[in-house]
Structures are given as C-alpha cells and as structure tokens.
C-alpha cells in the first residue's frame, strides 16, 4: 500500500476542492485495518469516507481531523462482512457533509460509534466516486445495492447541488438495474409529461422518481399498469404522468428515470425510437389506453382527467348544457400578453371558471373580463332548442373582452380556453391568435365597445388601455428612399409630410404645395407606409417632375399614422428646422410657411408653432390645447366653433400645439425621443410630444394668423364610433402619463 495520504482541502469560501494525487488509484482496495479509510470528495462540501469497523450505526457524529470544533454528523451506510474478524465485521461508507468556513486540510476523521470514538487516517490519495463504487462493490457483494441506495438517498437529502445529485445518480446508474422502457411520451397541457411503455417493477400509483434530464431531478410519477400481451415474463405495460418538482422538463432531453422498488433502484430507459406526441395528441392516447389500465382510484381519476384535456377540438360546442362560446379576436399582443374578445352564452351560469391557456401557462379570465352587450348573440340563440326557455331576452351581456398580460402563444403551443363546468367537467375551445395587432383589428375590436356605457369604460381601463401600454410597436424604420431632384444641403428648413395609405391625398397635397412659390422651393420629405410605396412613388416622381418639386420619398416600416411617418422622415433630412404637415391638412392661403417661419425665428427656434386648423365646414378643428382651470384638464379650445370666434386673435403660448401642422426644430424633436407609441390616434400622440417638448423648455405657440384646413377621414358611421373610442383610450393613456403634471400646471 502506498504511504501517500489523500488530501482534501476545504477553503475559506466554504467550497472544497480535491487535490488530486499524482499516483494512480487503480489498485486501491478497501482498507481493512480499522484505522485507515478511503476518502471520496463529492463536490465542494461533502466527502465519502469508507472503511471497516467493529460496529457502526447511522447517523454518526464526526470530528474532522479530530478537532472538536469541526464536529459534523454523517449518514452511514453499512454492510456485514461475512467471515471477517470482529474488529472488521462491518464495512461502512460515511457520508460526511463539510460545513466549514475556513481552509482545512483533511487528514483524518474521528467517527463516534456507540459512544466509542474511532480515528481513521485518510488515505492521502482521493478516490473518485467512479473508482470507489467498484471497491465497495467488491467488498459488499450482494449488499452493494442497499449501500448505494442509502448513499444515494443521503446524497439527495438536504442541500441539493448538481455534484451531489450527479453523484447520487451515478451511484444509481452503477447499481440500478434496467427495468423497462418508455416507448411513447408527450407533454400534457397541464404541465405533466405523459409516459407509456413497459416495466417489470414500476410501482403503480404515485411514486418518487429521479429523472436524468440535463442533470438529475426529482419528480412524481403517477402510473397505472396496462395489460399487454406482447411482453414476456413478468413485464407489464404502463402509462403514467410525470410531474416535475422544480424545473419543467424538456421532453426531448429526458434520458432515463430511476425508481425505487423493494429490491432497490431500477431504471426506465427511453427507447431510442420512442414516439413523441404533440400535447394535443396526449389526451387521445390516454383515453385509448385507459380501459386496460389498472391502478388506484385516484390514479385512474387523474389519468381520466388527463384524457379529457384539450386535444385541439372545440368541446364547448359538444356540451349538452346550454353553453356556447364564440370568438371575434384573439391577439398575441406584440410586447406581451394575449387579448381575447368574443362571447360566451351561459344563461344558467353553469361555467365555474374560464382559464386562458397558452404556452404551458394559464390565467383565469372570468374574474377579470369585461362583459359587453351582444344582443346579436341573444337573438341568434333564442330559438335554439338547447337554449329554449333559458335565455332572458332582455339580457345581452354575453360579450367579453380581456387582456391577459404575461401570456403568449410562442412555440406553436396551442392556445385555448378551458371551461370548468359545474365542478366536474371540462370543456375546451381552441383559439387562433393573430400576432400583429393591426389598426384594422383594433378598430374591429373597439367597434364593439360603447364608451358611454360602464362596460365600455371598464374595458378601456382594465383591458384596452393596459394592452395599449404593453403594446410594443416597433419604431418606424426607413426601408427605402428615393430622391426626386432632392437636395436639402443648403436648406435650413424642410417640409416633412406624413402620409397614410391614400395616394390621392399625397398627390393633391403636393400639387397644392407646388402652387405656393415659397413652399415649392423647399425640400420636401414625404414619408409613406411601405405598403403604399409602389403606388405612390411613380405618382410622386410625376408630380415632382411636373411641378419642379424637390422631393425625397421615404418608405417606412411600422407606419400606421402621420406621426409614425414624421418620426421615420425626421431621419431623412439634415435640415435644422422642420415643418411637419399631415398630408390631409391643406393650406388655405399661400405664404403660410413664411409666417410660421417668422414667428419661429422671432422666438429663436425654441418653440413649436401650430396654426389654426379648420374643418371642411369652417368650424375649428384646432386652435391650441389649453388648460381648463376648473377641471384641471387639457382641452382643445374652440373646437367645433365657427372660425369667426378666433378672428383677430393674437399668437399666444398654449399648453400644446398640434403636430398635424407645425414648425419645430429637428434637434428638439430628437431630444424628446419622438412620438409615444402607446396611442391610437395622432391627436394624443402630438399632445404627448408637445408636453415632452414643454418639459424640455420648448413651449407650444398657437399662430392664428395662419389657417389650414382638414377634414376627418372615415366620416360618420363606424368611423365615428371608432374615433370616439380611440380618443377615450388615448385619453386614458395620456392621463396615466400626464395627469400629475397637468394637475400642477398653471393655465
């Protein structure tokens, strides 16, 4: 035997480190002198000590290096050594936790057994666990499984760390016998993993297992045996649901499972050509196998429930109870959260809960949703046999709207509603979320709301508003740029036109600009959504050539309104001063830019100047945003009044101007970070920007001597309702941001 001692060094940090010996350990055997022991460090804070003794019990007090201040308690696995002298009758492995703050060179330990301390000098050379097990196995013979079991259990007790679990698992792997295979597996939507295969000794009902999966993890397996006639010997089929205790399992990384029988640890391997099921296929598999399954009542009930889970079908419409559900819109809101809007008809109140499930997560929506009137649903089902006599014809609150933050439909996982019906049945309704929340989709959604009703207000405050806040509109991005005689190198001022989808609007606006000599000579930057670029580019080229305009046409991604277009276009010119103009805003007279420029220059460029804008019927659309001192609210003063009311008015500072038409410094705009993207309409976006500018020392000035004209698009009809709602939603968002500041403003 070599005289070199094993060294275990414990450091101040509390971590330990094996100082590996230089000599090989291949020829080591279990020391039988009762004074020497082998040491196998596990990770930084545990060591296994192996030797022989006259007697040994567990747990056993331990002194490291014989030092009473380094007292530990070890779990000890023992085996009887047949034919050995009495002083070496017991072989042992002590699992010694090292709870040490300082550095320590471990040379010996004292084990107290039955009150008698026994000192063991440690073989200086540390033994890796993989080498230790054959040594133990050789000595313990048939007892090795029990020893390994005790060791494994001790290793997995208490403070768990990777090294310990790995050590435990390697003990199990070294000693546990293969007992069968998992042939079919799939994730259940409730988070468990469905397993199907065969085994000789897998316990039925619930048992604790260890799963090799990027390391080893404890889990609960609830299994039932399944009669199979394709297996020989004592093997049986099984189905089970594996529930992770801590981390969720990735089914693809599952390697094998350890389970314990009366005879020790066994493994279930994953069959190399196993079948992986989609979550929606799992219930059908369970339903298929359930008639042949045997287990306790609870287990069978659990499996039955799992077989009733969502399998991709709409089972709400199969319910024989008067419950039906329909969806109008499901949006995976960019930025996070799911927005659901639809109706549920449940006149008898049989539905206990409605849970929205997506990507393994779920959230009850029935407690927070806003119910909305849907008389069309009442009317549609009034004559339906299933609902005969139970629909109250005066009650229409079947619609609902809910925004659920934190859920998303990532990874192609199914998204659905889970309805719990009268406490004992589940029904499901698949949902198909759209990823992008287009303006059109929003309009469709909002068109069902009535801001004058409490439901509408609640919907805004609880759902639409927060959704808008969460909505992560990407900043508009320039995709393409085409210049038509464009040159802004010598111009301090550029006109920036923000356009939407209407080519005619841009054409007319450019033509009118061309007819004003002072504007016709300015560089003009026109920004349009990429979708219209193709149509509009040839038209802009034609107009630029015909009218002799200097135009840069920018196509940008993420442009939903003029403000987005402005934002993109701002990066498209070097001019210091920008005249922003929505393409729907038309000059009433030539010379309007010069007047705005004069007022702007007179204030040193430290101002945002907006003109009066009138509607097509000569009523006022914009004449400054003012503070209503009584209500402490911002109001667009004079809006809707005949334009005569501002005749003769002088230029004056207002709380906010309008970005529909204004002159402002490019640097000032850039310094505010541009327009907020959580608004639906341009009015509140502009107002928000003006307040940001005001905070940055750039006030807004209303210049009534300049008058522009603009009509509302989408006049009347659903457009009006949409605008009203959008204004309400925007006002909510605006107030959340600015109400404190506004409350402290002086008019």
């Amino acid at each position, binding site marked *: 035997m070599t005289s070199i001692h094993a060294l275990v060094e414990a450091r101040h940090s509390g971590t330990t480190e094996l100082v590996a010996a230089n000599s090989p350990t291949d020829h080591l055997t279990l020391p039988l002198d009762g004074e020497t022991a082998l040491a196998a460090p596990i990770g930084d804070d545990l060591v296994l000590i192996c030797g022989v003794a006259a007697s040994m019990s567990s747990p056993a007090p331990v002194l490291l290096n014989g030092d009473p201040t380094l007292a530990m308690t070890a779990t000890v696995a023992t085996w009887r050594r047949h034919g050995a002298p009495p002083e070496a009758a017991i072989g042992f492995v002590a699992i010694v936790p090292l709870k040490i703050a300082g550095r320590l060179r471990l040379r010996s330990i004292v084990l107290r057994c039955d009150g008698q301390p026994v000192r063991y000098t440690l073989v200086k050379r540390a033994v890796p666990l993989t080498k230790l097990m054959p040594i133990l196995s050789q000595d313990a013979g048939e007892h090795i499984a029990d020893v390994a079991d005790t060791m494994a259990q001790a290793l997995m007790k208490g403070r768990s760390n990777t090294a310990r679990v790995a050590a435990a698992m390697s003990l199990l792997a070294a000693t546990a016998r293969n007992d069968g295979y998992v042939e079919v597996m799939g994730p259940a939507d409730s988070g468990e993993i469905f397993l199907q295969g065969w085994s000789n000794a897998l316990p039925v009902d619930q048992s604790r297992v260890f799963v090799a999966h990027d390391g080893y993890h404890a889990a609960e397996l609830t299994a039932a045996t399944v009669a199979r006639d394709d297996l020989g010997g004592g093997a049986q089929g099984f189905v089970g649901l594996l529930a992770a205790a801590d981390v969720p399992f990735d089914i693809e990384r599952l390697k094998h499972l350890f389970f314990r029988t009366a005879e020790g640890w066994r493994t279930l391997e994953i069959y190399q050509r196993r079948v992986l099921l989609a979550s929606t296929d799992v219930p059908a598999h369970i339903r298929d196998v359930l008639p042949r399954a045997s287990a306790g009542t609870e287990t069978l009930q659990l499996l039955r429930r799992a077989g009733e889970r969502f399998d991709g079908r709409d089972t709400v419409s199969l319910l024989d109870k008067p419950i039906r559900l329909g969806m109008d819109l499901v949006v995976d809101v960019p930025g996070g959260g799911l927005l659901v809007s639809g109706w549920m008809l449940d006149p008898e109140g049989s539905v206990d809960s409605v849970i929205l499930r997506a990507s393994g997560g779920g959230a009850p929506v029935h407690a927070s949703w806003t119910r909305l009137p849907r008389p069309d649903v009442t009317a549609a089902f009034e004559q339906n046999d299933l609902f005969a006599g139970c629909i109250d014809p005066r009650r229409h609150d079947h619609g609902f709207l809910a925004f659920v933050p934190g859920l998303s439909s990532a990874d192609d996982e199914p998204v659905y509603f889970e309805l719990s019906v009268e406490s004992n049945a589940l029904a499901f309704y698949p949902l198909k979320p759209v990823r992008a929340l287009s303006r059109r989709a929003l309009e469709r959604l909002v068109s069902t709301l009535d801001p004058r009703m409490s439901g509408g207000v609640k919907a805004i405050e609880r759902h639409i508003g927060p959704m808008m806040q969460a909505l992560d509109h990407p900043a508009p991005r320039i995709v393409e740029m085409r210049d038509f005689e464009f040159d802004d190198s010598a111009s301090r001022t550029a006109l920036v036109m923000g356009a939407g989808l209407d080519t*005619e609007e841009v054409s007319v606006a450019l033509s009118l600009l061309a007819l004003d*000599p002072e504007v016709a000579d300015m560089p003009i930057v026109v920004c349009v959504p990429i979708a219209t670029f193709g149509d509009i580019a040839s038209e802009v080229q034609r*107009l630029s050539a015909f009218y002799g305009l200097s135009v840069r046409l920018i196509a940008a991604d993420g442009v939903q309104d003029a403000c987005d277009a402005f934002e993109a276009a701002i990066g498209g010119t070097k001019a210091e001063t920008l005249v922003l103009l929505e393409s729907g805003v038309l000059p009433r007279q030539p010379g309007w830019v010069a007047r705005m420029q004069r007022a702007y220059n007179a204030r040193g460029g430290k101002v945002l100047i907006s003109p009066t804008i009138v509607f097509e019927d000569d009523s006022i659309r914009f004449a400054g945003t003012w503070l209503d001192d009584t209500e402490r609210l911002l109001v667009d003063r004079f809006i809707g009044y005949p334009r005569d009311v501002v005749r003769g008015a002088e230029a004056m500072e207002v709380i906010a101007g309008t970005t529909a038409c204004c002159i402002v410094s490019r640097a000032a705009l850039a310094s505010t970070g541009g327009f907020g993207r959580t608004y639906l309409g341009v009015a509140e976006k502009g107002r928000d920007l003006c307040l940001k500018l005001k905070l940055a020392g750039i006030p807004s000035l209303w210049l009534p001597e300049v008058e522009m004209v603009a009509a509302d698009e989408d006049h009347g009809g659903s457009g009006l309702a949409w605008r009203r709602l959008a204004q309400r939603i925007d006002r909510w968002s605006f107030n959340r941001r600015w109400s404190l500041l506004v409350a402290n403003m002086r008019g």
Partner: protein
Amino acid sequence: MTNRSLRVLVVSHGHPSFSLGGGEIASYNLHKGLNRIGDAESRFLARVGHPVVRHGGTALLSLRQKHGEILYHADEYDHFLLSNHNTDEIERDFLRVVRELKPDVVHFHHFIGLGLECLYAVRRALPEVVIVVTFHEFLSICHHHGQMVKTGSTKLCHRSSPADCNACFPEISPARFLRREYFVRSLLQVADHFVSPSQFLVDRYVDWGLPAEKFTVIENGLDISAPVEPRPLPDAKGRRARFAYFGQITAFKGVDVLLDAVARIPESVWGDDAQLMIFGGNLERQPSAFQEKIKALVERAGTRVRFYGAYQNSEMPRLMKSIDWTIIPSIWWENSPIVIQESFFHGRPLICSNVGGMAEKITDGVDGLHFRVGSSEDLIDRMVEALTDATLWDRLRAGIRRPIDIDECASVHRDLYRDLASHRAEIDPAAIRTA
C-alpha cells in the same frame, strides 16, 4: 403687343367635328370669329380621346382638320379631380405647341378631359401669357356632372360643400371633396381671368371662392347667316302651336316634365294643329329606368309628340322654320344653352324653367315664358296660354333682342384680352406661380 395682332390659342375640350356640345361649338366659333375680325390670330387646340386612335410617339394629331387646328389626345383623366395624370405628354406635346405658337393669350374653353394641369403647364412655360378660362357649367364645383342637382332626385343644389357633396356621394368622404375643392380652385386660380356666358354662373363661382373681379360675362356668339321667317300658318285662324325641344334626352333636361305636360293638356286646347317636336337623341344611353319612364310618357302623349332624332347644328335654321316655340324644361340650372340664342336669333319665343341661366337669359313675359322648374302643371298653364292667347306669340317675338354673332363675341373677347394683357404686364413676374 398693341401694335401687332394678338396671338390667341383657343383650347377646347372637344372639336365640333367629333363632339357637338355647346362648349365645343362656342369655343370653335370664338376661334373662327377671332380670325375673322382682324387684330387677332387664333389657333385652335382641341382634345380628343377614346375611341379616336392616336399616334404612338405623340399625343398630337390633326385628323385632317383645317389649318390652324390641332388635336391633342388625352385619356388619362381623373374625373373626380379634373386632373390629367399624363403630365409627361402635357409637357412634351401640349407645351410644345404652346411654346412654338408663343400666344399672348391661351383661352381654355373648358378643361374636361384635358386636366387642370394644362393651366399650370402653360403658366410655367409662358409666365407672361394671359390665361382665360370659360365656364360652361359647374363641373369645378359639382362632381355630379357639374349640374348642381342632388343625386338620386331632381332636387336642385344651391351650394356645394364637402358635407353636402358627401351626402350626394356617400362613398366619397368629405375629406376627398375638400381636397377636390382645394385642388380644383387652386389650379383654376392660375388663370388670369374667367369668362362666363351667364351672370348666374358667375355668382355661383364667386360664392364658391373665385374672385368676382376676375369674371366677365360674355354671351356665346352665333354663327348663323340669316334668321328664318316665321312658320307660315295655313290660314288666318292658324295657331302658333308648334312646340320644339332641342337637345339631348337626359334626366337633367326635363323632357319627362315636358312630355307629362303635353299629355295632360285638355284635348279642347291642344286641338289638331298642336304638336311637340323633339329634336335630340341619346335616350338609348340613359339609365334604363329613365328610358322606361320616357317611353311610358311618350305612349301617353300619343300623336301629340313626334321624335325627330339627333340633329347637326347646321340644320338648325331649317328646323326652326317648322316651329313656333322652343321649350327648355331643364331641371338643372343650365348656364347659357346655345338654343336660347338660336331661338332668339330666329325670332322664336321660349318657354323655360324659371331657374339659373334660363331665367336670366329669357325674360318672363317679354321674350318668353317661365314655368316653375320641374312642375308639369305650371308648364301646362304656360302652354295653354301659348295655345289660347292669339297675340302672345307676336308680343313675345317683338320683345326679343338679337343675340350677338361670333364676330361680335370675338371682338368682346379681343378687347378683354387686350385689357388683361396690359394689366398683366404690370404684374411682378415673380408672382406668376402664386395660385
């Protein structure tokens, strides 16, 4: 310029050889008159379009017209904005003519089909040229064929606005109508002056936003050599009982009102000698509901009405020989229908609706009779008067003043051009692009 003859380019939306509308005839007559009166030299450029086949490389063509007449093919026309999208050809071909002719005056007799851009193009090409526009109806103001009659009814429109126009065309937003109004008006203001054959039309355009001082009323001149004699009556008891309708048979022209009135005049009044003679066509191009209505009315009127079909303007004197009265039952305002001058020229009193250009040109009880627009009852009363008052026709005929001929019309225009040219010379050329 005062020492040499004025060079004028008359631009028309159509050539009478291809399209016999009032505007086309008026513009062509102006061109002819200017060349005839001296001190002016006119060229005529008229728009043609589908189905006339054009040359590939140029929009210009002559189609074997007379010297000094040029045709210009334009088809990419936006009827809503009165805009020509083919600005490339305006610059290449239309402006080539303008630059080479170097006119002192470009007179647009309408721009439908040509596009308002032509005005701007001329202004840019020749900053000092005098641009005159003649209005023939309310197309700039009203998208409903410039008639200022509400769609879906025969209700007259008294004033356009984006909201009112949207009520007529719900599929077109007020915002688009606002754009139309500003676009059309702004481009019109590139012109120096506007001519209208009626004060009524001037008032409408001024109310719409064009400056009153830029307007002159000049009646269209007639190109007729001599008036025809009154229709010879068979005997001393013969009545002036031949009524005529001249013009297209469209919903705006009120032919249905006229037919209804004729059918309901008592037989004792109508007699054997009375007759309604309809000279005009295009009924087959009208909406089927209107065609059915007219057919039913004609059936009811029986032999009282006779259809003579479409006619050429040159046939007018011969047609006038066979009639005593001209009836203009239009349910729209009209501007100055040439048939009024023609009837007056030949000494035929008129019975007309009491609105717009008709009421302005025809004085009730002096040279004609008015009836309430759209009212067949009132028209019956007027026709009964005409049939029963033996001296009425002569009295009204005596009240007719001779309308101007094309030479007189051209002279008035020439004088106007000279005024405008001398005024224009005082204007700062830098302001020329100001609309």
